[in-house]
């Protein structure tokens, strides 16, 4: 098996399946991050990640509804695979930190939404199929709205000072 790079969109079913998987992956990732924050006693951030997860879940379910008779789950399992890196909206778990703040969480969300936006824009630019183009344009609209939404949320959470990761009881090596 060779991990593919970016899924090829050859039909409307492919587009729905990929769009569905992008949102499903985002939900799974935010849930994982929320669990991590629960485990590491950062409940404020766990709430933020769960809110992000809920928002993505709504979008995921909406795509499934839009897809009608297309079995997006089965179709996605067959073809919605990314190679190096992960699917566009998956937050980078390598960037997680037990003392991270809502600002950091929203930065991860913003990066994910921007990657998804760029992904659907690339489909709009590449496809010759008018149906795929029309639907991909709708996804571009939605992702652009999400980018704006995250920007608005960020106004509530200013960037923390550089000392945000300083732990008064740090995990230092044994003396």
């Amino acid at each position, binding site marked *: *098996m060779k991990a593919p790079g970016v899924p090829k969109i050859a039909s409307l079913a492919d587009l729905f399946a990929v769009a569905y998987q992008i949102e499903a992956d985002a939900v799974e990732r935010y849930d994982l991050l929320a*669990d991590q924050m629960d485990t590491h006693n950062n409940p404020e951030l766990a709430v933020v990640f769960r809110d992000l997860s809920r928002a993505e879940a709504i979008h995921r379910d909406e795509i499934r509804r839009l897809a009608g008779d297309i079995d997006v789950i089965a179709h996605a399992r067959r073809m919605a695979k990314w190679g190096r890196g992960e699917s566009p909206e998956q937050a980078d*778990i390598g960037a997680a930190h037990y003392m991270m703040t809502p600002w950091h969480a929203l930065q991860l969300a913003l990066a994910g939404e921007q990657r998804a936006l760029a992904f659907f824009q690339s489909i709009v630019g590449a496809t010759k199929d008018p149906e795929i183009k029309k639907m991909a344009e709708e996804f571009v609209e939605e992702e652009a709205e999400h980018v704006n939404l995250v920007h608005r949320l960020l106004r509530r959470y200013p960037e923390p000072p550089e000392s945000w990761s300083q732990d008064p009881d740090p*995990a230092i090596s044994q003396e």
Partner: protein
Amino acid sequence: MSTLDVRAAYKPSDYKSDVKPIWCPGCGDYHVLMSFTRAFAELGLPPEQIVVVSGIGCSSRIPAYTNCYGFHGVHGRSLAVAAGLKITRPDLTVVVASGDGDGYSIGGNHFLHACRRNIDMTYVVMDNHIYGMTKGQPSPTTEPEFDTALSPGGTGLRPFHPLVIALASGANFIARCFSGEPNETASVLVEAIRHPGFSFIEILSPCVTYRPDEKEWKNLVHPAPVAATSDPAKAARRIMTDDGFNLGILYRGDRKPYQPAIGQASVDPSELEREFEL
């Protein structure tokens, strides 16, 4: 139902347990767990036909987080447990998880002989160049100049080179992966599990708590510029001269796996008792 249908019946989440990982946020081992479940789903193996065996350490928590059979064993002895299991139950897929301390120090001797025996199993070592669970002591792969309260001025010791040792000891499949590329790692895992004999995968998996400098690894790793070789001499030269961040399958051997005949013991236990009678 065709084989393809059966394979399609499993998804990565089918291999996850309900136990929530307690690794530090940002730890590379989260990605390794994802790679495991993705690889198992790709292989389409029922969870009850897979056994994940481990020793002790952060990485060795992984069996609890999977829905497969698991054996969280004693420090450094995961390969011994796995070898016994695979010999008696060759029908099972055996994947062994370890870290650089568990696998190369406490379990170093088992590593050599597991490679030599070439039993058909897959050995995954999550290498973060530190003992994380016990709070940051230098491991066999820690750089000599790594300066901490536990190793003032650095250890001054040359790091262990696991891939070279695996090759010299007879491993039949050798690869290096980076945890931050879970899909690529899953692909390599699939190939390692399918490859007959002892497959060894070193996964560079950053410890963000005791080695925050390892966050830089994502900018250092790169795919191997050439395809895997089956020539051990060529593989040795490549592995010895690479920069330690060369990712991919580096060696695919063709040695026959060791699998003794089982279930044919004809010796009566009383005969053995007589033989050892004092």
